[in-house]
């Protein structure tokens, strides 16, 4: 005991926390405005981080609220940025690896949610990273890069919270459990990582897309199956499921379901709500998100093609054809790829000149290849591309 100074109270104090002036009941709680089988609008753009070999930015639409003046009523949003570094050689000290080593990292920015996050990843972030790795490992064609590694780093700039702030303040959590927001975040992580991997030009068997579905219940209503749940919109979430879906193969690389799944089918009668229905609805959500993903990849690739200047004169001289003929071949090839039919891989006649063109103008070939990567997921086709990388 220090007798020379004025001591604080023994036993420590807790910092004062003031209750909100308005009770929770006066706030109109946010409600889901879209239909049960409608997902939120997605913004996705690739190639925003120039220093990374591939990158993408993902954002979920935040619906405007009529009481946006209050900080406590802000609708949670989801903003993710993903960078892919590599494939790059492993350090000399690392043991031999016959295939591409994937390492994933998911980190919340300290300012991502109302509660500040530290800089050291906590267990929920590492858990997300492990889920993401499972989702991506299945689609990577890893054996094309022996002795190399790729890092997928996702930063959550703004993360969803589990329940609205005023509900917390009023203490009426109704025994809500945490972690539902994590499922939406994982689904976004899978989609954004997939876009960034494609942007980096890493061979995959297909793009993997995340989808979420949940069984929710409003106070005076029967349980309901919804796509893409926003945790703050629903009074009670009974069960939720995230999947990583490969549409062209109709396969699932990642499943994460939790909650009281079978029990929720009790008393439903008309619509079964077991695990099967949950997975099917999550697939629906993924299929809807895939269109956004494919469009974003196409836009990103087109931007790259526009950016590169092609010297058709030099190509023509090298191939002993006229300049216009070289240009025509290029656009015909590009159009064939953009038509997007799986069979529209360039014919032999078209491929050969392009291969030779590569020596002259390797920049444009590089970009055209990107288009092929995502449209044509044939392994044999990807094999020749892998060498060019």
């Amino acid at each position: 005991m220090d007798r020379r100074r004025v001591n604080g109270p023994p036993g420590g104090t807790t910092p004062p926390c003031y209750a909100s002036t308005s009770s929770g009941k006066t706030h109109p709680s946010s409600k889901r405005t879209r239909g049960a089988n409608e997902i939120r609008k997605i913004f996705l753009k690739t190639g925003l981080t120039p220093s990374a070999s591939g990158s993408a930015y993902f954002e979920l639409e935040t619906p405007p609220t009529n009481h946006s003046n209050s900080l406590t009523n802000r609708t949670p949003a989801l903003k993710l940025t993903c960078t892919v570094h590599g494939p790059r050689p492993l350090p000399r000290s690392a043991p031999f690896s016959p295939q591409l080593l994937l390492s994933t990292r998911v980190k919340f920015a300290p300012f991502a949610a109302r509660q500040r996050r530290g800089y050291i990843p906590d267990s929920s972030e590492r858990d997300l990273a492990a889920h993401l790795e499972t989702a991506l490992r299945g689609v990577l064609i890893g054996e094309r890069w022996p002795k190399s590694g790729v890092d997928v780093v996702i930063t959550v700039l703004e993360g969803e919270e589990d329940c609205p702030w005023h509900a917390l303040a009023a203490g009426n959590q109704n025994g809500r459990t945490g972690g539902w927001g994590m499922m939406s975040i994982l689904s976004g992580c899978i989609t954004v990582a997939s876009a960034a991997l494609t942007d980096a030009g890493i061979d995959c068997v297909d793009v993997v897309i995340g989808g979420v579905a949940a069984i929710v219940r409003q106070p005076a209503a029967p349980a309901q199956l919804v796509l893409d749940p926003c945790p703050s919109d629903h009074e009670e979430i009974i069960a939720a499921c995230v999947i990583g879906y490969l549409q062209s193969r109709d396969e699932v690389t990642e499943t994460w379901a939790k909650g009281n799944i079978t029990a929720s089918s009790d008393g439903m009668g008309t619509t079964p709500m077991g695990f099967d229905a949950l997975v099917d609805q999550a697939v629906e959500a993924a299929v809807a998100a895939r269109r956004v993903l494919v469009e974003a990849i196409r836009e990103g690739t087109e931007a790259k093609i526009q950016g590169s200047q092609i010297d058709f004169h030099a190509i023509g001289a090298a191939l002993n054809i006229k300049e216009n003929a070289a240009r025509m071949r290029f656009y015909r090839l590009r159009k064939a790829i953009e038509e997007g039919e799986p069979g529209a891989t360039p014919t032999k006649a078209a491929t050969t000149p392009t291969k030779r063109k590569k020596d002259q103008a390797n920049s444009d070939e590089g970009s055209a290849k990107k288009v092929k990567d995502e449209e044509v997921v044939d392994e044999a086709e990807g094999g020749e591309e892998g060498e060019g990388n």
Partner: protein
Amino acid sequence: MAPTAQPTILSPSELSYLYTSLSLNPPIRPDARSPTSFRPLVAETDLLPTANGSARLCFADGTEAIVGVKGEVERTGGVGKQIGIREDDVEMGGIEGEEGTGGAGGEDWWVEVTVDMPGQRDDDAMVVFLAQMIHEGLVADGGLRARLVINRRWHWRLYIDILLLSPPHTYPLPLLSLTAHLALLSTCLPAPVAGLEKDDDPIFNDDWDAAIPLYPSTPPSSKAKANLSAARPPITLLVISVGDNIFFDPSHAELAVADAVVAVTVASSPSSTDDLNLLAVRTIDPPSRLSSSAAEMGQAVEEGAWKPKKGGMSRTVLRKMVGMCVARGGVGEEVLGGLEGFT
């Protein structure tokens, strides 16, 4: 995340033999078990004198785990651990919540699961993944959380410490989950003698013989219906698929050729006619993708050499796996029944 610590030592032709025999109809497992039968195991409970509950489980392949469960009494409000504002502070402001957080049904973080594996760092992906998976199953139905409430201001905090004693030969998830199940079944918390009213400080009986089991073997008749659903802690089963066949309790060699690995958490259901409650499903990265043969065979598939499958698993297989676990009279019920015998 590498599910197994060391890569498989089997040659490509051995893997191919294994894969073919497992995908036959009916399948032939290396140890001649049926697809749903488990390996024998040795278990004992209540072996740690200083823990509220404990168990030791030993699988036939030599993997062994010890789980200790400890309980601590903690104040429900106070310094917020995750959320700054809690019930107490609200009352200070003069707003009386008719039902505080404590009365509602508890919080997830009252149950803390840690996994310790020899030779693995605490922040290793596998350790984190395992701990999260076991925690997720325990808190999923809210039954355990609700039991931890003492009164409005006090609650039990449960620490479940899982210690793997042997090096992780196979993916240790079923071992750890079953051991945690047994430890929770043997857990007793001191019986309160006073202070169960709204917000008194609780006083406990210091006679250990009077302690109340966390999971009573026969649910009290007064609230039998409500409590039966969570009368037993959940278990997590590891299921693999090879071709169209589905196997439970895979050995190390079988995991090496698995097309897909899924962890399914189930708990007993309230009525005896329904299926079991499904609490969580997670896919796990099959270790075959990390084996060296995955790359060597990459160029051309030779006759007699096996190459792991790319892509994921089909939804039909996933459904079949989950269905086999939860079905009445299925594997999940059999395992739950078998574990009952230990206590």
